[in-house]
C-alpha cells in the first residue's frame, strides 16, 4: 500500500516561498491567482501484509512525529 502525505505551513504562518511565487506569477501575467502556498509531498510504500488500518496508524504517527514540525506545519494524507 502507498501513502501520499502532504505537508504545508499552517495558514497562520507566513510562507515566504509561496508569497514570492505568487508575486512572480502575477508579474508574468497570471492575474487570477489569489494565493500560493508551498509545501512538501511524500510517497511512502508499505509492506503488503499490513491492513489499511495499520497503515493509517503508521502514517499518522510518521507524519506527526517526523514529517512535520507542529509549531509551523500541518499535514494531510491519502492511502491507496
Amino acid at each position, binding site marked *: 500500500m502507498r501513502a501520499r502525505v502532504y505537508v504545508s*505551513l499552517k495558514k*497562520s*504562518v*507566513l510562507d*515566504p*516561498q509561496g508569497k*514570492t511565487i505568487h508575486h512572480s506569477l502575477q508579474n508574468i501575467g497570471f492575474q487570477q491567482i489569489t494565493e500560493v502556498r508551498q509545501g512538501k509531498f511524500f510517497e511512502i510504500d508499505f509492506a503488503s501484509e499490513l491492513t489499511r488500518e495499520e497503515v493509517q496508524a503508521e502514517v499518522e504517527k510518521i507524519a506527526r512525529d*517526523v*514529517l512535520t*514540525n507542529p*509549531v*509551523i506545519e500541518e499535514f494531510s494524507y491519502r492511502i491507496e
Partner: protein
Amino acid sequence: MKFGVLMFPGSNCEHDAYHAIRKVLRQPAEFIWHQSTDLKDCQAIIVPGGFSYGDYLRTGAIARFSPVMGAVRRFADRGGLVLGICNGFQILLESGLLPGAMLRNRGLKYVCRQVSIRVENARTPFTGLAGEGDVWNIPIGHMEGNYTLDTDAFQRLERNRQVVFRYCTPHGEITADSNPNGSAANVAGICNPRGNVLGMIPHPERASEPLLGSEDGVRLFQSMIQSRSQV
C-alpha cells in the same frame, strides 16, 4: 571547563568550535559522536553548525532522533550548559529544548556575512561577561534563520527575558534593515526559561580571533566558563 562538541553526519562547524575552545580559550574539548549516549563528563555541550543529515526533510529534524540528543536532554534537565549554534539552534528547536521554529530566510537565499547583534540579557551563563546593550560583530551563514513563534508564546518569551540576542545596526538600534533574515522581533538567539540552554543563529566560533575580523564571540565562551567557576 571541559566542552563536548557533538558530531552528526553532516555537521561541518564542529572543528571550528573545537578549535575555538582548544586553541583560543585553551580549554579541554572532546567530540561526541551522534550514536553515543556518553557525554564524557563534559560540563558544557556545543551543538555545532552545519547541515546535519543534509538539512533534508527540515533543518535539524532528523538529528533530533539521534541517541546523543536523549543524553543532551537529560544533561540540560540537570542544569548543564547547552549551546546550539546555527544548525545546532535548529536542532534544539526541533528537539523541543527551545520553543519556536525556523522558516526560510525572508530573502529566500542563503546569507553569509558579518552582522551586529545586541546583548538583550546579560544575566545568562552565556552573557555574564557582557553588558546589556553591548553590540557584537559576528558572522552569520544560514538559509533558515527566520525565527517564528505564535504570539502568546512569543510574549511569554519576551516577558521571561529569554531573548538573549537581537540583530541590530552597528550602533545598537533594532531596525528592520538590520534584520538579515526576517526573524521575529529581530531575534538572533534565545534561551530556555532556566537560562542554561542557548540557541543562536550567529557563529561565535567564527568571531573568536582578531584575524577573522572579530573576537566578540570569545566573550560568550568565557562567560560560560566563568559561570561554572562561580558555582
